[in-house]
């Protein structure tokens, strides 16, 4: 059971993800709707893991990831992406993200990804 921060500009996606995470024994300790908020929430909550949407207003997910990793090199961040965004996802990994999950979310895949990354 891990403390997770969910970052996505769509409340609907946050809810979907929250349901999957909580029904698999994790705790969603906070939510953020854009990159700037995510930085503040990370500081405040120090979650075990962050799920980070890529396309968001203010500061996008890749920049936010770079920023968080810069301050907390051990942060575990998983990108949320749609199909066909390979280049963006790769960029996020280079920025320090540890994995990715694809929308529409499939619960078993999400759980596998999160458990793997948490294990590291």
């Amino acid at each position: 059971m891990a403390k997770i921060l969910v970052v996505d500009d769509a409340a609907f996606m946050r809810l979907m993800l929250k349901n999957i995470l909580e029904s698999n024994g994790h705790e969603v300790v906070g939510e953020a709707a854009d990159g700037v908020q995510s930085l503040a929430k990370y500081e405040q909550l120090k979650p075990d893991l962050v799920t980070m949407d890529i396309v968001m207003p203010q500061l996008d997910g890749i920049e936010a990831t770079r920023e968080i990793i810069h301050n907390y090199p051990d942060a575990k961040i998983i990108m949320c992406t749609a199909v066909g965004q390979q280049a963006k996802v790769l960029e996020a990994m280079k920025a320090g993200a540890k994995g990715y999950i694809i929308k529409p979310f499939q619960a078993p895949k999400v759980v596998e990804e999160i458990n793997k990354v948490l294990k590291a």
Partner: protein
Amino acid sequence: MSTETDMDRDIDVTRYRDAFLEETKEHLQTLTESLIELENADDALEQELLNRAFRAAHTIKGMSASMGFRNMEQMCHSLEDILDALRNGNGNVTPDVIDLLLRYTTKLEEAVTRIEDTGNDNGSAKREKRGYEIRVLLDRACEFRGVRGFLVLKNLEEIGEIIETVPSREDIEDGRFEYEFRVLLSTEDGEEAIKDALSAIAEIKNVEISKPNLNLEKEQGLKAGGDKDKNKAKNKNKESGMKSLRISTDKLDKVVNLVGELVINKSRLAQLGTVYKIEELDSTMAIVGRTISDLQYEVTQMRMIPVGYVFNRFPKLVRDLYRTLGKEIEFVVEGKEIELDKTILEEIADPIVHLIRNAVDHGIESPEEREKKGKKRKGTIKLKAKRETAHVIISVEDDGRGIDVAKLRAIAVARGLITADEAARLSDEEALNLIFMPGFSTAESTTEISGRGVGMDVVKAKVEMLNGSVEIKTMKNEGTRVLLKLPLTTAIIRALIVEVCGRKFAIPLSNVCEIAGITQAEMKSVTGKEVLILRDSVLPLFRLHSLFGQKMDGKRLVAVVVERAEGRIGLVVDAALGQQEIVVKPPGEHLQSVLGLGGFTITGDGSVIPILDISSLSLRSDVGQ
């Protein structure tokens, strides 16, 4: 001169190392088994087991000494001392003594692994850089291969230096490879560290790590290394006149695939004979047909290994568990000799561990509780394998407290998985199946042993991925039995062929529960979703017609009831044409992401039929079409 003798010795040691390791492992297995059996042995058997254990320890000692593995030699020597004292009646065989002895065998096993990894049995030996060839196979479901590839390389770089990759690094990052790539890594850490580094990445199907290459030269790349290995293997064969040969499973898979092609083409040829009425061709084809089925059988057999390979490590696991928990358990293994496809066996090992852990932790009661219930203090867990026509049934059975179905209902409601109303309506059998829902765990407090995040849902998903099925039976205070029904092989399956809008589809028969004729009038709408009321149960319906954007007309239709992780659904099709053995061809790269598509098969007349993947199809119906 002294350098020369050192070199001679070096050559000797490497030449015999594989043989040494193989034999040592066998003797270690005997040793461990004898020690575990000791616990329940009577006096006569005890003496025999002590002798057997002593002989095994003695043999390992001798071999280790000649290989120069001083550490192992000394451990065996101490083991011998204890065993000898026990043999001569100086001391009793108590569970604590057995614990102590088993700690030695664990240490010996670790030493063996160390020798495999580093060529040395001493943990504190000087650290040397070694080259490992690592083959990484990604899951076919992987969407962004390049990203996974990048993560693999990044994690490997944290423990060593990447000398070369095939394909190039750039190609890997851009996803230009067919699910598999190779990395030559130079590192001071061993195989375990490599596995650890890769365990944090999802969607990796398999990692193969070659034996370390002791003196790694930069210019000696992957290809050159491979050739050298081949030559070495060839020489070795010549020297010892080996009767068996190691073949990588990849190669075997290719042969299986080719045989599959043959099977398909055979039926095409046979059809030609019938169409053009060539009698000679008919009779020749009959013979070719027999040869091909023999070939198919032999190839399938080559992939089979006895389940004992995996089962043998369980007695120790069980013992460790129940000793920690203060329980008394007799662990019985039956059917070790039953054979199963190697891939299936490997995949199924973890689920079995999970079932055994559950049985020890949640199933069997404490000795005191058992006595109060009038049961024997000692519980029994049985792990059985048996062959049943084209399946192997693996069962884990305990005589413990059984699963409290009422509690399952309550928990499912508390977790918000179902409503109280729904819970009340479930039959006991259906309620028992709640345990397979994702995120479900009945342990009130998760102990160190179970509740590590792998639930029964994972067991079920794994078994279904292998085209098998799970069944669970329980009786209050009498125990629980979980049956895993597995196919012998995954390459050839039985499938139901159905027709939709004039097109044929195959549904793996292992998913199919029943087939029912229905009319449009029987399909009801409940809260906007189409359902079928079949006897007492309400089945959500999925119209395969919608895949083609077509409507059905009013004629009679067929509902194929299939089982998926979340429950049963009915697939509406125009007709069920019959069942058939089919060769599964995985979908090509560009079709990987098509939901609901599990692959293709080619029939005798050369037509290509898509195989439906029930688990992802159902998901599509959840999303709404």
